[in-house]
């Protein structure tokens, strides 16, 4: 009796897994296909430099002595009109030399007005809440401290706000340390698929892009209208995306607003980063899905897309459940006497085709970026896939455990930086790990693109 019940449950689980994951597979295929098919991506590049509102750049910092000078220098070097620019480095209780570096820049450039936090709730969202109260710009642009924006990035991020429906804009994050470890190489593929592929594709199709909290901008009035940042959220960016969406504001994606970041080089750092994202994201799912489904501002397909986006981390545990159920059926002799073949075939079919859908997106993005050699790493991405599946399942287990028993969740975790540890001076010092990026900047994608414009 118990065995029969187990077999029955396994069938149901497999059927659910196949159905659930196939929906995502269809989504991945559609996004990948549409990204290739649409010749003319939706963007506002032709308006860049023609729309120049007052801008406040916010840079949250916590013990950033290794990278603070790089990001500040990059902002100083940007081509945005200094008279319309205000930069607020938010020094959140740093114990290293961040304060001295920031104050040094503030002395030289009057538009840099640091805000030194000494108490209050920790974490980036809480710091942003306080910093935003001091900001005077119509548009708030955000960079994490380890990012190095190019000269025109601020102009590019601001251009979409000529559209009054746009509440936020999101640029593209490009890892610079692709060759530092296998993980960073694989994550560069993942980022490429996420931005060049999925974000652009969703934006082309009329869905709202996802605001990422860095290399992004938000309209101050829109932010105020939704009650500002959620200091309780671990992913204040995703939280804001959906808060804006519920009020009718859209998020634009600007593919060419490219900015360098340092992706994790070790699996433990990656696991912790992913854990924070999963927890914050799933929290947003629980907070927003009922309102999203009833929103008068969204079309039916926008609601479906939003739900897919919010529930995306569920795919990992569902897949694991499917694996467990199929193993059970394999090892229970009684199951072999029942017609399980159709379900097994369906599961196999999913493994063969649907599970490759995300790989297709990576391939599409690599092709569009012209980085074909990196796309050859795709088979090794299986490692990333299994590691992600484990980390996501563990994070979700913790999240729902905490939710069930009311215990406190994870705190805000700052991703470990390695730039500057090699003894160099960083991007602008000329000898650090990232110095080669500027040194080799004369050739590359932008020139190739411009010539073909």
């Amino acid at each position, binding site marked *: 009796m118990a065995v029969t019940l187990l077999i029955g449950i396994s069938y149901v689980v497999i059927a659910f897994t196949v159905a659930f994951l196939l929906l995502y597979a269809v989504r991945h295929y559609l996004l990948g296909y549409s990204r290739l098919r649409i010749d*003319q991506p*939706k963007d506002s590049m*032709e*308006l860049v430099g*023609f*729309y*120049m509102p007052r801008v406040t750049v916010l840079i949250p910092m916590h013990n950033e002595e290794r990278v603070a000078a790089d990001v500040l220098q990059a902002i100083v070097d940007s*081509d945005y009109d200094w008279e319309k620019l205000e930069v607020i480095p938010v020094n959140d209780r740093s114990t290293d030399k961040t304060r001295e570096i920031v104050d040094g820049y503030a002395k030289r450039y009057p538009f840099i007005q640091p805000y030194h936090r000494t108490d209050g709730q920790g974490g980036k969202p809480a710091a942003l809440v306080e910093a935003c109260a001091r900001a005077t710009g119509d548009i708030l642009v955000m960079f994490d401290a380890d990012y*190095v924006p*190019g*000269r*025109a990035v601020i*102009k590019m991020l601001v251009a979409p706000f*000529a*559209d*009054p*429906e746009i509440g936020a804009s999101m640029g593209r994050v*490009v*890892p*610079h*340390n*692709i*060759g530092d470890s*296998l993980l960073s*190489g694989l994550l*560069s593929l993942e980022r490429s698929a996420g931005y060049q592929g999925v974000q652009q594709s969703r934006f082309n199709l009329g869905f709202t892009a996802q605001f990422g909290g860095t290399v992004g901008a938000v*309209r101050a*009035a*829109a932010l*105020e*209208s*939704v009650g500002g940042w959620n200091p309780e959220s671990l992913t204040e960016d995703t939280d804001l995306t959906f808060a804006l969406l519920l*009020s*009718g*504001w859209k998020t634009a994606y600007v593919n060419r607003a*490219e900015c*360098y970041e340092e992706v994790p080089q070790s699996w433990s750092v990656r696991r912790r980063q992913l854990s924070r994202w999963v927890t914050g994201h799933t929290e947003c799912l629980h907070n927003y899905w009922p309102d999203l489904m009833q929103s*008068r*501002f969204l079309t039916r397909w926008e609601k479906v897309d939003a739900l897919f986006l919010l529930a995306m981390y569920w795919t990992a545990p569902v897949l694991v459940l499917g694996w467990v159920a199929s193993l059970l059926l394999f090892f229970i002799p009684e199951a072999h006497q029942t017609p399980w073949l159709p379900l097994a075939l369906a599961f196999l079919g999913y493994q063969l085709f649907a599970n490759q859908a995300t790989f297709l997106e990576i391939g599409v993005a690599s092709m569009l970026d012209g*980085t074909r*050699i*990196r796309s*050859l*790493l*795709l*088979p*090794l991405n299986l490692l990333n896939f299994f590691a992600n599946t484990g980390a996501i399942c563990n994070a979700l287990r913790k999240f729902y455990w905490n939710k069930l028993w009311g215990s406190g969740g994870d705190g805000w975790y700052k991703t470990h930086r390695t730039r500057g540890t090699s003894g160099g001076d960083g991007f602008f010092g000329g000898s650090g790990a*990232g110095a*080669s*990026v*500027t040194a*080799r*900047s004369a*050739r*590359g*994608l*932008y*020139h190739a693109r*411009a010539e073909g*414009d």
Partner: protein
Amino acid sequence: MAFFLFSLFFCALFYLHFSVAHRAWRQIRGRESAELDMGYVRMEDYFGQSFRTKLAGWMKTLPRATNSTAGLRVFDKGNERIFVAGGAQYPAGRKEREILVIEGDFSCGRDCEFEKELMVKGDCAIGQDTQLQALAVDGTLHVGEGARVRRWVDSVKQLTVGADAVVASRATSRTAIEFLPGAQALSLFAPEVYTEGRHEVELQIEVAPSVIVQLPHPDRTAVAANGYDPAKLFSMGGNTYLYDGDLHLTAPVHLRAAFVVRGDFSCPKESLLEADLKAHGAVTIGAASVVKGNIVAGGDIALKPNTYFQGLLHAGGAMRLSRGVRGLRDKLPVAAYAAGVVTMESNVVVNGKVASAQWVVAVSTPVAWLEGARGAAVRG
């Protein structure tokens, strides 16, 4: 034995599967993502400026060829050569296969062909039906009637794009661009871009009309009137409003807050739009209106005659700038961009940029654009 062979085969397959990836990883290992130009700044005249810079570098570093004479200097650049002359007048039908640098004035007759880039440091006049690759001029530039430029043109002084001439990419000038009827380009950028017959009609704004629709309407419970239904209005916060449906106003509008219309929008003549407007569909602005904010449309944008705009226009479809339209504002240039064809009627003046993902075309008389034949004549 069979099991052993199967295992061997499986291992071989497994290795093949990952060996390519492993080889790729060995190539990438230790490299930085250096494919982006961090110093790159988007500039409208990027091509012209970039070519001038590269040319100056070549002329400093490249060896001069042995066949150089006093009147003509020749530089060898790999498979190409650069001819440098003091000034020149090419007769009709002449073909030039090398990069040409003219240090004085230059003119050519009709039906000439330039396979490589042309740089002129004085004034330049290109003959009718001439074909060019790209052209940078430090003086004035006249692109003759029916000429074809495969890439870009850039001039420091006045640029005239002659009737029926085609510039396949960007046309830029630091002074002004005159865009004659039938001319086509992908993008025009100058302190002043204008079509034929400018100044014939000055902008005329009549006395404020007696019936005006105030948007957003102060009373949401008011009865629908003049094409406006207050019940369809929702606040998004941040002094921005959403109108759920088409909005075709029958009385002039005074738009005072940012407005998003989920449908088409049109307003009659002499309207005043002081804030940004977005329509998911088409936007039609009545004649002699004043647009102080930006207009973004998912579909077409049409500015009727003598409309004055001070912001940005961005259309997901086609765009029409009717006779007498003016685009100008203090400090910053304006921009009008459409994913479809941009049609500029006569006497249109835009201080800034007019661009399209397809073509910007000048017409002397209204064509059957509104009757549904838009773009067909241009693409043909």
